[in-house]
């Protein structure tokens, strides 16, 4: 279970768009046809491999209902990635994206990678939002875009993994400060040299307080 990195993700978007189903499909590979309203945060985790490295995704599934915004917001902090989900069969969920995006940008760190997801692609006959519209929105706001189906599992793996790849690249480019846990990234145990009792000490840029002499 040792991993090189741990990334924290959040899943956000209107109620009923399929956030919990996406998580369940990704972690358990199954689909849940009933809508069990999420109220508090639900956690999921899965190990993936990128560039030969084991990466643990720690996923926080949030509540989409307006009434629970105050809790949802408080979970944004310290996320490295976000899946912003809308339902391609419900135009209103697409129309609310701007609000979600503003909320997310305001309450999370600026480097957070955001993946826009148009879910329920299996319901082609009931589609209300064209794929091109999703693409355009993503382009305009600098997001990555994908259409998925939590039911058929189409693109679900890709959505989670591609987000991780983006984060991984940002780490390589040095955009993310991986030593700051507030960025939603943690270095796995075999990478950090913080052994038992070796707390702090080698902090960046200087000596531990407590002085010398």
């Amino acid at each position: 279970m040792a991993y090189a990195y741990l990334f924290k993700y959040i899943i956000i978007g209107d109620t009923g768009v399929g956030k919990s189903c996406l998580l369940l499909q990704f972690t358990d590979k199954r689909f849940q046809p009933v809508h069990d309203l999420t109220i508090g945060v639900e956690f999921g985790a899965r190990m993936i491999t990128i560039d030969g490295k084991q990466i643990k995704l720690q996923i926080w599934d949030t509540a989409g209902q307006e009434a629970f915004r105050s809790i949802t917001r408080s979970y944004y902090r310290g996320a490295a990635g976000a899946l912003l989900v809308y339902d391609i069969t419900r135009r209103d969920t697409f129309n609310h994206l701007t609000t979600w995006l503003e909320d997310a940008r305001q309450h999370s760190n600026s480097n957070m990678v955001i993946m826009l997801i148009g879910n329920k692609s299996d319901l082609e006959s009931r589609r209300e939002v064209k794929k091109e519209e999703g693409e355009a929105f993503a382009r305009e706001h600098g997001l990555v875009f994908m259409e998925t189906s939590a039911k058929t599992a189409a693109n679900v793996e890709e959505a989670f993994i591609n987000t991780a790849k983006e984060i991984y690249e940002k780490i390589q480019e040095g955009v993310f400060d991986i030593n700051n846990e507030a960025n939603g990234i943690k270095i796995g145990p075999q990478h950090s040299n913080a052994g038992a009792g070796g707390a702090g000490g080698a902090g960046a840029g200087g000596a531990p307080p407590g002085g010398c002499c």
Partner: protein
Amino acid sequence: MLSRFSDVLQTAADVLAPPATRLEDFEYHWKMVVNFYQNYEESSKVHFEDTRVPHHLHQMLQLIVDEEKEQQGGTVGPCLEAVIQRSVGVLDALSLLVSVDRPPGARYSALTLATSLLRRTRSPCLNSPHVYRPLQRMLLICNESPASPTEKEEVELLLTLCGLVRKEPGLANIFTTPFVEDTASLMMIPEDIKTLIPIKSKAQTPKKNPLFEVDMAPNPLKTVSIVRVNKDDNYVQSSSSAGDDNVSSKSHKTVYDDNDKFLLIDLLLSYLDSADNQVVLRACEGVLIVSSLAEDDIAALVTGCSPACERLAARLQRRYRALPPDLDPAAVDQLSITWAYVAQDFGDKNYNNFYGYRELTAFFSWLDYIDTLMKECHPIIACHLSRAFRTQFLEPAAEELAEPRSAILATAVLAKCLRVLDSQDLVNEFSSWLAGEGEGGAGEWGPLRALALRCLRGDHDLTLETLRFFEAVIEKGTEHSIDRLVLSRVCARAYRAAGPALQDERERLNDLSLARERERARESLATDERAGGLLAHADDNIHRVVNSFLLLLPRGVQSQPLADCEHYVHDAQRHYQLWLDITSTYNWPTEVTCADTASSTHSYDSRPEADLHLDDAFAPVHAHCEPKPSRGACGGAGGCAFTQALVLRSRDAPTTSEEEFDAGPFLKMLFKLLSTMPDQPYQVNLHLTSIISKLALLPHPNLHEYLLNPDLPTAKTTPTLFKTLQEVARRLTMEVPRIKNYKKVIENTRLQLMSEDPSYDEIGSHNQLVESLIVLEEFCKELAAIAFVKHQHQLQQQPHQHQR
């Protein structure tokens, strides 16, 4: 077996007969449940999940969910209506299953089924007594046995109820005194259900539940609504069957007596102490949901009828006390914790990574929770909670600060607390606790005075940690704390001396050696690209300020005589802008004033000359007059120049104030430490100078004048930054050249310090004297840069200021 067979029969019958209505199906499944229990052998070892009961109950749930989809205009379908009318007492039955847990596992399923019913339907008619009472009964029964194996499911149901209240605030009423009966009667399983499901074991004799000791009014269902709901509740009409029991009546009551309870919050609080972090998380979410409701009445219930705020704050104090005393203070700074984090990460053994980590994260995650709650909750609750934060946590924490054994750690932890707090209310509470509020007297300063004084006791570790604490106080910069720390001392401008001191000043100006010094300064300016080339357009006065700092140390002992201070200028620009933003709402003067002249015998303000020539020395930085920069207009000793102009026009300076200037414990401490720089470790000096440069950056005209005007006329006894620096410089200039090969030593020390090699600090032998020389040298550059940046900013803001 039998039941399965009858299911098959039913299906077969369905094929032949006209399809049964939903309600018939519903009643059928209910009958099957009852049948099971009528024939149930209590000695049987069979598990609940291995019986047909869950199947029937799930079918019933599904029927309710399905019928709702077809229901129009929020009307109630026949199955749910049967529950509301209690012709099908399935919810009471579930509460019985929670109580008896027969067959084993029934309790778990009953709780999850109830939760599912509430989560999968849009309007589960919670306002009907036959819906809410069984649910309350379940939770109360569960509450009788804390830390039960079904804790997770219990709190999940509780959170779901919070969610429903969140959507329909009027529902809060069903959790308040007039609507909840006393424990005994509420927990009593109705007799008819006991007959239908005759389980003899575990006859429920409710214990006295402290949660719920209410002296009951005779009619528990009288229509008193504590919570007023402003919007029209259409859901009320939707369930006509609820009839008179309807809890959302418009009458209200806002006075509570001691027996008033808010069951919802009390239940939530009882899960906060669970050993399971997931359970605690849910309870926290519940509290957050209920506390952030907009209704004043609910907020008043939370603060007036429940110990919620006190409990939350006391928990912080407990976690603070649980920190191991020998925890490494350095570990504190590295943490980055959000409140829900604990629930998720404590399962991860990898992160139990240093001694005390668990306790430390437990404490800071709770602090983050309170901070989050403060930002989201109703103002009434915020007010109450911030007071509890102070009395339950901060004030007891002060003891730890004073205790020698725990002082260093406590200081580090509290500094970190201040750094991470985001709620302005809490930051303000922190600062008024720290800096005191009253006027006059020793207590006026709060713990701040003791903190300042102990920096002078020569315990370098403690001094260092305390300085870091002060850094946090200044960085967090509330108007109140900055005022207490420094501004209250300089606002009367009592640091300015008159008469004799000015005489000295004039003599000093005529002094030959000084003239030489100034000559040298001018020369050096010829090559003064080292000041970042930014002095090129500056006028004479700022030249003098900058040079006073840059030439404080003779070149002979400077480690880097030709270095530039460009990066200091950049940093100062950035930080100054930040400060301008932060303080833009502060009630700070834009010009040097003698406000609050209590300690001053004159009012400098009233003098026209002063207004014209002196008090505009630090011109308004926030005023928006003519933002176009026009440097030419400011060439001479005009209005926008720094205060050096003072000296030359000091004839009409004020007469001496009899009282001595009192810099206050904080500034005194800073100057004292500054004067002993050569005797202190590098880290102490680094933080010390960093605090002073932060103060020098503040856009307050008096503070600016006091700290950054090297030629300020002051009484002999009045300490100033520049005088203190001169003193240190004098000492270093004398002592450093006595070191053998001192130039080489200076050069090496500089290299080592700049390499930022962490191992350097672990080396035993340090040349503190030379280190402090280098700190001083850098500090002077920084001060010069700050003076310059502020001057430049002023030029841009106030091109024609002198023409006012």
